[in-house]
């Protein structure tokens, strides 16, 4: 009993030490959710380039497999790299990855969504916990991205639109691999914008407003969705 007590005290300090270290000198990727280059406000009225008036209520998206390439050809690959960005939880948009340094970063690579191997790996925890509401029950698999809101253009119940984009079975494997060339020192965070205007400008909400299953339409949306991401 005593042994267990001591060990948990130590473990506590150990974790504390780890987390303290994380904050002080780690290089992070910060994602910035925007509409037309301005920070997105939830439930705020916007007009898209396709002329739809709309409000966004939910944005959630998995970022996985983060990799940093340096100009000396070394590569940092994050382990267990699965992160859920959730508009309800602003902190989730900043992802610490590795130590800051004086090296030059030449490229960042990451996936939007979850790879097929992880999709068949059974019950998982952390950001991959099915409790997070990013998992399909009747057809196993992660929802890579959820965008939900309202628009008078949608002749649906309560004018809602719902996009649940995902799928891991070919030919409907929806994960998108993103690569951004950079030329910056690794002593400062990397900033990536996610501009929802670019998503909605490719879309007519009166015609496309509810996509909730993997398939052809989801693949199209996944292809639009990668246009939202840009290096700042």
């Amino acid at each position: 009993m005593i042994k267990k007590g001591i060990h948990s005290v130590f473990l506590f300090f150990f974790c504390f030490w780890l987390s303290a270290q994380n904050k002080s000198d780690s290089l992070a990727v910060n994602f910035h959710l925007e509409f037309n280059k301005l920070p997105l406000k939830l439930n705020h009225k916007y007009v898209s380039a396709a002329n739809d008036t709309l409000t966004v209520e939910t944005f959630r998206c998995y970022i996985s497999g983060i990799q940093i390439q340096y100009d000396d050809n070394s590569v940092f690959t994050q382990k267990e790299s699965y992160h859920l960005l959730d508009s309800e939880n602003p902190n989730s948009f900043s992802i610490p990855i590795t130590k800051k340094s004086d090296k030059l970063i030449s490229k960042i690579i990451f996936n939007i969504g979850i790879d097929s191997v992880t999709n068949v790996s059974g019950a998982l925890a952390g950001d991959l916990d099915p409790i997070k509401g990013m998992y399909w029950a009747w057809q196993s698999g992660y929802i890579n991205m959820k965008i939900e809101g309202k628009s008078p253009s949608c002749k649906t119940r309560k004018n809602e639109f719902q996009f649940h984009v995902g799928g891991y079975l070919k030919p409907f494997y929806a994960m998108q691999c993103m690569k951004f060339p950079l030329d910056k020192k690794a002593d400062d965070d990397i900033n990536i914008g996610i501009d929802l205007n670019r998503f909605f400008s490719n879309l007519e909400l009166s015609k496309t407003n509810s996509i909730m299953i993997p398939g052809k339409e989801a693949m199209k949306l996944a292809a639009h969705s990668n246009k939202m991401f840009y290096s700042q």
Partner: protein
Amino acid sequence: MKRYWKHSTLMCLILIGFAFTVRFATPIYFEVPDKWPKPVYDFSKNPITEEGFQLGRNLFYDPILSRDKTISCASCHSPNNAFTHVDHDLSHGIEGRKGKRNSLALVNLAWSKNFMWDGGVNNLEVQPINPITNPVEMDEKLENVVTKLQQSPKYRTLFSKAYGDEKVTSQRILKALAQFTVMLKSSDSKYDKVMRHEASFTQQEEKGYQLFKANCASCHTEPLFSSDKFENNGLKPDDSLKDGGRIKITKNIKDSLRFKVPTLRNIKLTGPYMHDGSIQNLPMVLFHYTDDLYKSPSLSKQLTKKITLNKEDKDNLIAFLEALTDESFIHNPKFQYPR
């Protein structure tokens, strides 16, 4: 140097901690019957222990998993019926709400790659999310299940026995349920005893076995009595259900009306039959295969040649199918309601 010592003491303590967590759970070895294929389930990611299995067993029989605490897994998968339900064609869930499909018998799941009639579920561990959250089954949210179990002193004890601490997570719930369901192994029917040379078939069963191998085994492949593939066995689609089976998952027209080949182990006990529960008994099943095939473009090629069976053949075939009943599985006290 000082720092180094600090670190190694810390590491030692952590290791002792691990030793603690490993020691209290009793490993169970999953035995693969002789000449059976290698299981599909990855036991290395969920090592079975007595404590984990018992937790799973308690969860399986507990209606606490449903929103109004009325329906347990066993409501639809009862041990007396080889872990399916018998009284109705389509499953009944919470408040008597009717599902779209007949319940499947839970048996030899360690050898299945895909689950459900359409194979939509890709891993045994995530299968329970489906009934728990389905509005016509248990209609509950996973996070509520976690909360309810965390509040229960009984489950806090069971979780700490299985995992070393009381923390309830969805991953722990799902892995424990899988520990129970994956252990539901049936390999001791008369058929198995004959294969092990511990018994012999009656003349009737032997004739039935030959007929089975000629007409049925291409899909209901031994020893699991399922190829684990998706086939169209000529069942006429029920217009009110509009169930295309596998096509829902693959969106491939070739998969229209294809369903997972179900095992025939304990088949005598698991009627009514087929994904829609449309066939009442085994003689009717044989009538289906000989005289009542619905011809559609995706009909499996094994069935394009007419199957002819006379009255005596049918009796023999049924005698063989009845030799697939495994009493020691049905009555195994380890699988019954926990007391």
